[in-house]
């Protein structure tokens, strides 16, 4: 027979022998069966070495079960490329392809392993002590290449992830005996229940043991319970779903991998539960001895799983090494698999060992009070073990074996409990940490609670569930507990034994396999004063690897306690943090990906713009707006120039829809407006508007805009596009919290209105040709006034406001008519050569006029007086937002940066926006900066605006702008370059 499936047992297991599957490992074609994991299939094929270790590149294989089996990590290749996948949880599928990680050229012959030769100079924290001279940069690339395991995928997957919310009464995490009973009880009691388990199916430990309920395999019972659950409308069961984050608010994040009924890679559930029941079981931990990482050293439960679930014999001759009773359960499994038993090494005394029938009838030798000092490997796999006695350390005995079944005890899966801020306590009788005080609405049942016997787990699951239900006022229907057939269970009875080595010499006795941390490393750290458990973790990296110390941490704490001569409780644990097991980033982001990663907003005219060459800009508050419209053969600058000319000389139109708008109503509407703007709005007629600047309470400019009076107590306040969300929040807080005495109501109406702004010297003439009842004449509709009426049969509001400095009509219509209005204007504007313009042209035009741009001149340090808007600050008003602060600041700072115009001496020079203005030797004395600089068609030269120290007193002076090493002389001027009197916009 070929090596193919050489370790597969002829019968048994839960694998589906009718469905053989082909897969690739390191390029070699192998085969397994459906229901195999990648790990079991590799084991069946006689493959021992899956990867190389982090630091010393030691060969590693399968040691543990499920997510605790950190040494089984591989790179999943092909379409679903994914790094650091644990073979022990990866279901086998047809065509799967995987590679070993952290090795070159191959996992069996790995150059990196030669590092082991230098390992004596690489104890924990060695990098803090060397590589300083001449510079870390010389060494870093080598270290970096050596670090890390798998590779990030080169391509993004095309499939989706989703993320969703849910609510329930009872969330049960873990579907072992305890979790199933808890879920069953909740379901029968009519509670909305969600049951999740990280494995591909239910059952927990019952999936790999051969327990019998009512004389039938436990899995039958599992199936029966689950089908009852799945048939209940108020119950959801999620398999392959890890509860990874126990958040505040009793919310648990659960990531479901590749939900079977949907074509997605994963889905993250954010579940609020009234009560959470943690039935997360326990993880078997190793005992530390020299070479305890060599393939062939496995946890007893992993051996049981291999044999019972996957019909694989992980060795031929086994030695059992334990400090507790649970290990003896492996014996019948070894028998079944035809594995010879080389002996049992138990660290406990004869009296401590419960002589169950499992050993009573055997001829096998049990060496009590003994331990495995080290295993000897033939390079790739265990060959023998050196065993010695606890009272007579010099007594060494070599036992031939190719499999060492280890049990160092069980670590209750307290991760989620601790994440939820629940406290832990060290329990001597199980030599591990247990949940103590819950902070959130959390319950624990089963092995996680320290209940190590199956009957106890079943009973506790139901009891705890009943308790949780009654806490939320649901009458519990407690299901009967199935009868266990002849219990093959042993008494747990653990006696702590953490490590065979003291770590005085640098043996390879690994505490943390994921980070290659040895007992020696822990000892060294202690010696150097890193005795705090958190220092120890950080100095040695113990518990910082891929499995976050699932098996390592308790051992490390035990070892430290032993050497510090204290109780493990005094050492304490490091902090448990999410995620419980690594979660794909894609699942966390869910559908927030690609185009929909951020909200975007469109005006009703979007499609028109796009089909007319508009280059869309993000205009603030997620709005998309045309930046400029490109015509064939044009450059961006050409386009902007053309658009500017249209406004200054003829006729243009732009989409001003995104401008923020609020309808304000109430007897105190005017009072509010007078409080939020620096100037006074008294005396405004209905239909009249006024420009205002809004400060924050710190006295600094926050926003600006025009407000119109619509009716007696009704105003329409407008603000900048990007500022609208902040203005909305500010106003809302102001009237509800800061000035609750105001009798005023605010309705944000930004998207209600679409706006086409017609501007240019021909705007009035043009609009007079439109089909409209509006009187466009100066008398009827002067600057800063509005009119309502109809245009082309559409109800419109026309505002005479100008941000370009040119004659301008803002035509607002309910959004549904936006496109219709726009198209109508474009159509009748055709003979006029009407030109659509974007925000770039607007920018040039406003610079020519010295109008304020929040994005440019306002950097959070300026007040309105700095901006030359002193006329807008009504000092007589007793109060407005920011008044007090502005006054205090001005008292303390007489000299301020003020808005000025700047004319580069060379009229062709463009200065970069943001260039500082400086004087003094080496330009060290800062005097301000250039906030905007554009080519102005109207002035036929470049012009700029800036903030300059004491600027208004310095008109005519030449100052130096500093632009990338060049100093550029610029002449200070008034900040207006076009139509200084403002006649054109008032036309």
């Amino acid at each position, binding site marked *: 027979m070929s090596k193919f499936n050489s370790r597969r047992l002829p019968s048994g297991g839960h694998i589906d022998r009718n469905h053989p599957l082909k897969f690739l490992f390191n390029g070699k074609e192998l085969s397994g069966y459906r229901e195999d994991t990648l790990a079991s299939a590799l084991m069946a094929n006689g493959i021992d070495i899956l990867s190389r270790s982090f630091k010393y590149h030691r060969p590693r294989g399968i040691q543990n079960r499920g997510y605790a089996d950190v040494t089984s990590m591989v790179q999943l290749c092909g379409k679903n490329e994914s790094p650091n996948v644990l073979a022990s949880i990866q279901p086998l599928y047809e065509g799967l392809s995987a590679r070993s990680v952290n090795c070159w050229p191959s996992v069996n012959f790995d150059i990196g392993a030669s590092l082991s030769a230098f390992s004596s100079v690489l104890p924990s924290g060695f990098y803090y002590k060397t590589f300083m001279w001449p510079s870390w940069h010389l060494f870093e690339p080598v270290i970096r290449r050596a670090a890390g395991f798998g590779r990030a995928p080169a391509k993004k997957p095309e499939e989706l992830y989703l993320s969703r919310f849910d609510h329930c009464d009872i969330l049960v995490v873990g579907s072992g005996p305890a979790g199933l009973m808890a879920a069953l009880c909740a379901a029968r009691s009519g509670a909305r229940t969600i049951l999740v388990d990280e494995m591909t199916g239910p059952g927990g430990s019952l999936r790999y043991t051969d327990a019998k309920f009512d004389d039938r395999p436990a899995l039958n019972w599992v199936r029966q319970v689950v089908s009852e659950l799945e048939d209940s409308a108020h119950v959801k069961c999620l398999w392959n779903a890890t509860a990874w984050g126990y958040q*505040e608010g009793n919310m648990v994040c659960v990531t479901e991998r590749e939900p079977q009924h949907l074509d997605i890679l994963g889905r993250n559930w954010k579940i609020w539960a009234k009560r959470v029941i943690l039935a997360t079981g326990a993880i078997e931990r190793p005992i530390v001895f020299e070479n305890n990482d060599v393939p062939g050293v496995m946890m007893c439960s992993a051996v049981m799983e291999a044999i019972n679930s996957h019909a694989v014999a992980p060795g031929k001759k086994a030695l059992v090494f334990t400090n507790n009773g649970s290990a003896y359960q492996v014996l019948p499994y070894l028998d079944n698999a035809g594995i010879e038993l080389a002996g049992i090494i138990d660290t406990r005394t004869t009296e401590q060992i419960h002589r169950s029938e499992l050993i009573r009838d055997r001829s096998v030798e049990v060496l009590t009070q003994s331990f495995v000092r080290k295993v000897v490997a033939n390079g790739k796999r265990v060959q023998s073990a050196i065993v010695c006695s606890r009272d007579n350390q010099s007594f060494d005995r070599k036992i031939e074996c190719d499999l060492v079944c280890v049990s160092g005890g069980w670590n209750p899966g307290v991760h989620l409990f601790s994440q939820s801020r629940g406290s832990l306590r060290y329990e001597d009788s199980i030599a591990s940490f247990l949940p103590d005080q819950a902070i959130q609405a959390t319950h624990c049942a089963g092995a996680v609670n320290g209940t190590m016997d199956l009957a106890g787990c079943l009973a506790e699951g139901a009891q705890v569930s009943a308790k949780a239900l009654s806490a939320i006022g649901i009458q519990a229907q407690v299901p009967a507990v199935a009868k266990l057939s002849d219990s093959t269970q042993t008494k747990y009875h653990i006696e702590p034994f953490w490590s065979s080595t003291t770590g005085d010499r640098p043996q390879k006795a690994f505490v943390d396999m994921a980070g290659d941390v040895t007992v020696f490393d822990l000892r060294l750290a202690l010696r150097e004063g890193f005795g705090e458990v958190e220092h120890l973790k950080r100095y040695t990296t113990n518990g910082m690897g891929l499995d976050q110390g699932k098996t390592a941490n308790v051992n490390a704490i035990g070892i430290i306690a032993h050497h510090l001569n204290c109780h493990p409780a005094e050492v304490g644990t490091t902090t448990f943090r999410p995620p419980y097991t690594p979660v794909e980033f894609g699942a966390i982001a869910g559908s927030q990906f690609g185009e929909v990663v951020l909200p975007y907003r469109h005006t009703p005219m979007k499609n028109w713009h796009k089909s007319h060459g508009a280059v869309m800009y993000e205009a603030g508050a997620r709005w998309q707006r045309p930046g400029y419209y490109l015509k064939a053969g044009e450059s961006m600058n050409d386009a902007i120039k053309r658009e500017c000319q249209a406004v200054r000389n003829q006729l243009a139109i732009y989409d001003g829809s995104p401008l923020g708008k609020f309808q304000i109503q109430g007897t105190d509407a005017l009072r509010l407006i007078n409080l939020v703007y620096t100037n006074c709005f008294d005396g405004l007629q209905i239909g009249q508007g006024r420009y205002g600047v809004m400060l924050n309470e710190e006295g600094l400019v926050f926003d600006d805009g025009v407000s119109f009076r619509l009716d007696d107590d009704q105003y329409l306040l407008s603000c900048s596009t990007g500022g609208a969300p902040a203005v909305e929040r500010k106003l*809302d807080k102001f009237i509800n919290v800061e000035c609750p005495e105001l009798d005023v109501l605010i309705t944000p109406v930004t998207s209600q209105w679409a706006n086409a702004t017609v501007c240019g010297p021909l705007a009035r003439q043009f609009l007079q040709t439109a089909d409209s009842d509006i009187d466009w004449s100066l008398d009827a509709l002067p600057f800063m006034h509005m009119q309502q009426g109809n245009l082309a049969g559409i109800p419109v509001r026309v505002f005479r406001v100008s941000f370009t400095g040119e004659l301008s009509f803002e035509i607002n219509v309910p959004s549904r008519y936006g496109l219709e209005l726009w198209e109508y204007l474009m159509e009748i504007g055709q003979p006029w050569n009407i030109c659509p313009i974007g925000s770039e042209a607007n920018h040039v035009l406003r610079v020519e006029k010295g109008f304020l741009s929040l994005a440019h001149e306002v950097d959070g340090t300026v007040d309105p007086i700095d901006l030359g808007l002193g006329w807008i600050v009504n000092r007589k008003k007793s109060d407005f937002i920011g008044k007090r602060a502005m006054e205090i600041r001005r008292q303390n700072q007489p000299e301020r940066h003020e808005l000025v115009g700047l004319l580069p001496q060379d009229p062709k020079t463009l200065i970069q926006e943001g260039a500082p203005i400086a004087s003094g030797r080496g330009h060290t004395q800062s005097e301000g900066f250039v906030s905007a600089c554009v080519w102005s068609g109207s002035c036929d030269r470049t012009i700029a605006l800036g903030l300059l120290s004491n600027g208004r007193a310095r008109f005519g002076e030449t100052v130096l702008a500093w632009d990338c090493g060049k100093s550029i002389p610029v002449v200070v001027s008034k900040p207006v370059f076009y139509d200084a009197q403002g006649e054109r916009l008032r036309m």
Partner: protein
Amino acid sequence: MLLIPCPWCGNRAESEFRCAGQAKPPRREFVEKSDEAWLEYLYLSENRRGVLEENWCHEKGCGEWFKLRRHTATHEIVDAENDS
């Protein structure tokens, strides 16, 4: 994510709410006070571990403003009340 007890809607997801800082007396009570008192109103707020009373708004929901007492280190909510 917390579930926050809106006085009008009951428990709703934290993401529907806005926390708007420490609850202080209304602004008008400071307008007439000394510069020092005004500055205190402007930028001093309690910044400690423990229960703080804050202004919260069910911004994406019913729009109500209310006072919430919340622990700044555990994020536990003590109570919420509507004073209108």
